[in-house]
């Protein structure tokens, strides 16, 4: 699992994740989002294009990140989820608050 954080300027951070977002890797996502928000980048785009699988812990990290960002007056948006990720979001109704954008660069520049 690899996390890459890119500062897009304008208070926007893009977090790119590769691999499986599960019980093992989810805590790392929480940390990365919290660190970005603490550093003033409270608009976080999570690029899921290279995530092959998400479990409930991974979803929990996205929800946690969303709360953290919103509490700081920002937002967390996701980009390019695959079919399995979409299914998890759809089943839990989380697609209503975690809107998926086609690409991370569009998430805050729609």
């Amino acid at each position, binding site marked *: 699992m690899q996390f890459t954080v890119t500062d897009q300027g304008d208070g926007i951070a893009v977090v790119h994740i590769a691999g499986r977002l599960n*019980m093992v890797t989810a805590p790392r996502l*929480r940390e990365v989002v919290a660190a970005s928000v603490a550093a003033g980048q409270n608009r976080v785009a999570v690029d899921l294009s290279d995530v092959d699988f998400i*479990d*409930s*812990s991974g*979803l*929990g990290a996205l*929800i*946690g990140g*969303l*709360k953290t960002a919103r509490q700081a007056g920002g937002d967390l948006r996701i980009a390019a989820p695959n*079919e*399995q990720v979409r*299914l*998890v979001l*759809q*089943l*839990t*109704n*989380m697609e*209503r*608050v975690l809107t998926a954008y086609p690409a991370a660069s569009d998430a805050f520049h729609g």
Partner: protein
Amino acid sequence: MTPALSSVPPILPYSELARQRALDDLQILDTPPEERFDRITRLVKELFHVEIAIISLIDHDRQWNKSSAGIDPDQPTEYPRSIAFCDSTIDACGILIVPDARIDPRFRDNIYVTGAPGIRFYAGHALEAHGGERIGALCVFDTQPREFTALEQNLLRDLAFWVQKELNASQELDQAAAVQRGLLPKKLVSLPGFEVAGACSPARAVGGDFYDWYPVGEGAAFTLADVMGKGVGAAIIAATVRAVLRAGSRLAAVADVAGAAAATLEPDLDEAGSFVTLFHARLDMDTGVIRYVDAGHGLSLVVHANGTTERLTSLRLPVGAGDDSPWEEQQVVLAPGSTLISVSDGVLDLFDGTLASLAAVDRLVRQASTAQAVVDSLMSLAGVSAPDDVTVIVVRREMEG
């Protein structure tokens, strides 16, 4: 007949009785080898450059080895306690070092010193059960005399703590699993005209899925919930969710039950960084009306007797995901011959992992003749090694007449 004097059991000191009981409680004696212990003895053998490393347990009058490295597998795994070095270790204050057994008055006449394999060096650290009872030792042997430095003693102590943690962890998990199974509902006795069945197969010893049912008024309440994650952390939260929902059984409306439960749970879920998907329903057994709420669960079907199947809509986000909209209850009627089934997302992985799995669940329900048969067929698919917790609850209304 008067027993011969030698067969009268000796009066054991209390500490020995407590020690033996603590060891028996671990239920580890005479169990097969386990990799989690074998990897430690292998490591210990290499680390200290010794010929033999052993995890021994002192049981009544014998020493039994749970794991060993450097001993032929066809050698016995137990020895009389009277000649066991490790028995001295549990009597000593935690650690026993014998640099050269041949010149040590305690061991120079020991048959393993005078005969094969000719032990010269021994170092052992006691292993303790929860209450501090010394139940065995992690020890090393060599046929060459040697010193054992303070640094090596510290290492051996740390490794012994690791073994201890493994010994006690399995027991704690087994106990937790038994408690969690105890929280599952028993057979529902008074729901004439309906059959109810459920099962829960955690991916680990315990899990975050649970189901529940209990009589409420002229019917029953049903729950299927899935706490984020797996294992003990999820199981603790699952027990809390079950309790707060049950506490609401005196309330008339399911929306109020769920709303009150969510208000109680949300600060805890926030603190734990967790969330719960929830299906909670009440059945009126006279009319077959089911009133329900669904918070991000979305995996409940009513398989109607008329051939149609309805997927019950989930209106809300999971509990703990920050949904502050009012709870709304929905309704569906279970006609005679119809079945309500709710499953956890682990069930999708038993098929193709997509929502098409629900069609397979639907077929399975239609093919089965009882609620229990539906549960049994899903559980046989889950087997023993499903990657996620698999939980199912089935309520079937019998045909009339």
